[in-house]
């Protein structure tokens, strides 16, 4: 008797609650475009944020809503972007590929160390400990915070302790830009081929004493470049990329240190006048002398 009572009570309760759910499902139904799910399936699902959306789902919603173009996902292969654009019947969009670039070329073999840093293997840790051991206060510390932050294995540290960006793998997700405590990384369209690989604001001889490939602020590149393309600011050459169309290989030719380079096909070309560096081994630690 008890069994029958219990079963019928629980069964009845089940039927009532199920009918509540059934009604709620009808009344509170949110119509969602089924294409959002489809597009999300086609996206790489890395949730890297390179497109500016907080994740792939949000990007899919934005694509379906027409706020973003499929090409803005730099991680998807181009064919997939075309496929999504066809599927949605929207503009593919014209997004130029961007890559992360490092504004420093001072590896261990050319940049002087004034103190040895020993401690946590992290650039940020070194920065909060007296700024690390590098003589140049602006230069790459080479402890690899950017390498750790990169989810796409696009950054590898070379033997001179400088991060090398593999352009094919870089999706311009901004992670390394945020990870670098010295703000050396920036995202640049690949068409920006003229590049100043230095951030030192020190004066000529002082900069040179710290690093053999520093920008000494000699202004030769600015003199050789078309008017307004390169300007000198605080002992550093600054390129105005709004005039990028005027850029040629000419301004790099007379650079005495090779701080200004021409980047093409993953290779940095230095000018003819740049001092040749054949040293491979790190420079010894040498405290400041003056």
């Amino acid at each position: 008797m008890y069994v029958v009572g219990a079963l019928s009570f629980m069964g009845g309760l089940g039927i009532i609650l199920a009918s509540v759910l059934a009604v709620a499902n009808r009344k509170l139904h949110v119509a969602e475009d089924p294409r959002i799910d489809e597009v999300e399936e086609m996206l790489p699902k890395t949730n890297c944020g390179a497109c500016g959306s907080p994740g792939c789902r949000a990007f899919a919603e934005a694509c379906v809503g027409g706020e973003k173009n499929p090409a803005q996902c730099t991680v998807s292969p181009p064919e997939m972007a075309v496929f999504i654009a066809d599927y949605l019947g929207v503009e593919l969009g014209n997004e130029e590929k961007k890559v992360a670039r490092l504004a420093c070329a001072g590896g261990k073999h050319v940049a002087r160390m004034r103190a040895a840093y020993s401690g946590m293997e992290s650039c940020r840790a070194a920065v909060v400990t007296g700024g690390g051991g590098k003589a140049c206060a602006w230069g790459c510390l080479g402890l690899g915070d950017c390498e750790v932050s990169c989810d796409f294995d696009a950054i590898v540290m070379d033997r001179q302790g400088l991060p090398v960006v593999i352009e094919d793998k870089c999706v311009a997700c901004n992670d390394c830009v945020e990870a670098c405590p010295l703000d050396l990384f920036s995202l640049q369209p690949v068409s920006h081929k003229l590049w100043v690989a230095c951030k030192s604001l020190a004066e000529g001889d002082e900069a040179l004493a710290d690093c053999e490939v520093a920008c000494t602020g000699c202004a030769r590149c600015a003199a050789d470049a078309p008017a307004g393309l390169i300007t000198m600011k605080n002992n550093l050459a600054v390129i105005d990329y709004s005039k990028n169309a005027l850029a040629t290989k000419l301004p790099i030719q007379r650079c005495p240190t090779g701080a200004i380079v021409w980047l093409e096909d993953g290779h940095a070309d230095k000018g003819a006048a740049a001092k040749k560096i054949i040293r491979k081994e790190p420079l010894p630690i040498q405290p400041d002398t003056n």
Partner: protein
Amino acid sequence: MVLFNPSHWFRDTFSHGVHPEENKRFTARKPIQRLPFAPELVLHLSQHAGAPSKPIVHPGQEVSRGEPIAEAGGFVSVPLHAPATGIVKGIELRPTAKGPRTSSIILETYPGDSQELRYYESRDVDSMTTKEIIQAVQDTGLVGLGGAAFPTHVKLAPPEGHKVHTILINGCECEPFLTTDHRIMIEQADDLIAGSKIVMKALGAERVIIGTEDNKLDAVEVLKSKLPADSPIEVKAVKTKYPQGAEKMLAKALLNIEIPSGNYPSSVGLGVFNVSSTAQLGALLPVSGGVIERVVTVTGPGIEKPGNYMVPIGTPIRFILEQLGFNGNAQCLVMGGPMMGSSVSSLDVPITKGCGGLLVLTESILSDQLDQITYPCISCGHCLEACPMHLNPCQLGKLAYKHRYQEMEADFHLNDCFECGCCSFVCPSSIPLVQYFRIAKSSNREQAMRERAKAS
């Protein structure tokens, strides 16, 4: 005499904290001596908390010792004064103890000059109003000489609605090795008392407590002998423990008052000032002078003549080391104390207003440290018992290891940590906890800045 006084066994203190080896014996009995003037002085324009100073000299200008060379860049900022008679060589970027270069006034001292202080003007402090005193304190360029370098005059103008009744003069100097405050309390007791009275007047407080630790009882005796019985200034020694010199710990130890998280001491009616700052205040205000020198303890096994030295602001540490016998064997230079100071990567870094110690460590001491292996956290809870802020360094460390910095701030009060280093000091797994927290804080700061930039 001390051993058999039972009242000394039950001195007040705060809860938690650690007892690092003191190592003050090398310099505690050495009177303050003067160092010669370095041929070139480097004066950072931002050696205090707040806006940088604005230079009012031009290259090639001759300046007299004590003359203002930079003006305050706002209310939370202070002027700079020439620490020596000489000529301004230029305004250049020079390395700081923290690493990045900052714009600094380079002063070449005249080697033949008598370096007499000609730049002063006597005035009667007693007849000055509170407002005049605050302006006068800003004009001296005085900042917290204990290390934080927060402008003193800002502390004399507490926020609206805060009424300060008690002033704590902080003479704890809980950092190992350092003895500057100890010597100042003994040798500049009159200035200290005069400064205390000025601070009391400016804030309208009822009493002053000079708080120190019971390893400096000779200073307590000197100060007590100078104070009449009915004086509103009281001298009190608390039990020696690190980090008693933190203002929150000191308030707890002396008065059993807790300063709430994220609040100034003035919110509970307290004003906390450092002994060195107060003594300089007492000495400078009546003659309208400026901060041009400070006492620095130069010590450690790597230095031949350890001691307490009166060093002109801007003296490069290379010069100090050359003067005091630097055997070149030193492996690590620390500015400030060993617990909270930061190691310096360049010998061209000058002494700033906030630097009270220069510690020269040799290889033999450091090798133990460098060989230490970091083991995983075993959740022993030693750090919880050490943390004077009653935080959970163990949990914070685990989150920091996973880069969950925002969570540390939101749920585990990361910003209450004042980086005293007790947790790292006691950790049996030698986890660099305080370093993790510094990284987390710097990362959070950058994140907040990015978000602000995005919003605007």
